């Protein structure tokens, strides 16, 4: 990059890419692996679920993730209480190789909005248990501050509902969260296309996390590559410092020396 950037570091671990991608909803594991490679991401999220006892034929997700290159971030998706989320996080830690968790405590089935009260409580418990907690939260600066106080290693406000593709709905809140926060801010959920990622990064987000925007695209591998550049472009624009917005035009060309005047 043409301008010096601080490394993207969470809890002492540095990542090359500011794009974090999911592993769900791909047409096949092979397409997922290619999309991951195209995205340039070095952190992927996974879910923790019961092993299918009666059908052991299905291939393992981990066969398609290059764990020498990719850091695996287990989530607690689908958990609706503090207890469920804590239990799932503990299982994810045992199944995996790290003490990191993308903490989700969902409050409502239709919106998948977080239950922030339970989320703060679960964050507190898991931090005490030695986890590096990355909570998926509402785009609420006060909740983000409470999560940070509870020991979250980063805060992950939603841009819009999970899988909605609506883009960043409350631009001002994301900006305020960035201003308030002393831990990395990762916009998690709501991205629909490349420009949404760029907007998140231009607002000062330290990273963007997405699943459906890539996995659900017509051409997931191409969209993954688009997201790579979009995140880089947004970051660079943020560092470069945009011009202030004005109501009226300011000429780019000299106003003197015009022919025939």
């Amino acid at each position, binding site marked *: 990059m043409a301008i010096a950037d601080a490394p993207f570091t969470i809890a002492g671990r540095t990542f090359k890419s500011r794009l974090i991608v*999911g*592993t*769900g*909803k*791909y047409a096949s594991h092979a397409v*997922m692996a290619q999309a991951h490679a195209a995205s340039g991401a070095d952190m992927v*999220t*996974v*879910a*923790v*679920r*019961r*092993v299918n*006892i*009666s059908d*052991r034929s299905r291939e*393992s*997700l*981990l066969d398609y993730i290059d764990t020498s290159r990719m850091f*695996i971030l*287990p*989530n607690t*998706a689908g958990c609706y209480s503090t207890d469920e989320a804590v*239990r799932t996080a*503990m*299982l*994810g*830690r*045992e*199944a*995996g190789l790290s003490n990191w968790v993308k903490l989700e405590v969902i409050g409502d089935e239709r919106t998948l909005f977080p239950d922030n009260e339970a989320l703060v409580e679960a964050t507190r418990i898991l931090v005490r248990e030695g986890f590096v907690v990355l909570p998926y939260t509402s785009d609420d600066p006060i909740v983000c501050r409470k999560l940070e106080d509870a020991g979250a290693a980063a805060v992950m406000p939603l841009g819009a509902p*999970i*899988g909605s593709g609506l883009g960043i709905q409350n631009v001002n809140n994301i900006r305020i969260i960035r201003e308030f926060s002393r831990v990395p801010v990762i916009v998690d*959920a709501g991205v629909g296309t490349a420009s949404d990622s760029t907007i998140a990064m231009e607002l000062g987000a330290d990273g963007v*996390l*997405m*699943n*459906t925007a890539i996995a659900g695209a017509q051409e997931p591998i191409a969209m993954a590559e688009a997201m790579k550049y979009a995140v880089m472009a947004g970051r660079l624009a943020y560092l470069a410092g945009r011009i202030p917005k004005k109501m009226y035009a300011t000429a780019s060309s000299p106003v003197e020396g015009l022919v025939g005047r």
Partner: protein
Amino acid sequence: MSSLSSNPVQYNSASQPVRITLNGDPYDLDQPLSVQELLDRLNIDSRRVAVEHNKVIVKRAAFAATLVGDGDTVEIVNFVGGG
């Protein structure tokens, strides 16, 4: 692999029937097994799963020493695609 879902209970003088709850469903064993033996029997790679025994997480190092007996609850989880 033998039929896992319709596993017949063996009645003999040497052992009592053992019924456990495995991932939410009843599951019959001929005799108590260690967690490791259970995983082997299910053809599950123990390096890729986490196991809860009666709601307590079993560390991988303790798979061989943890015995699953009648009435016990076992959860075996792994990673699947998610966001």
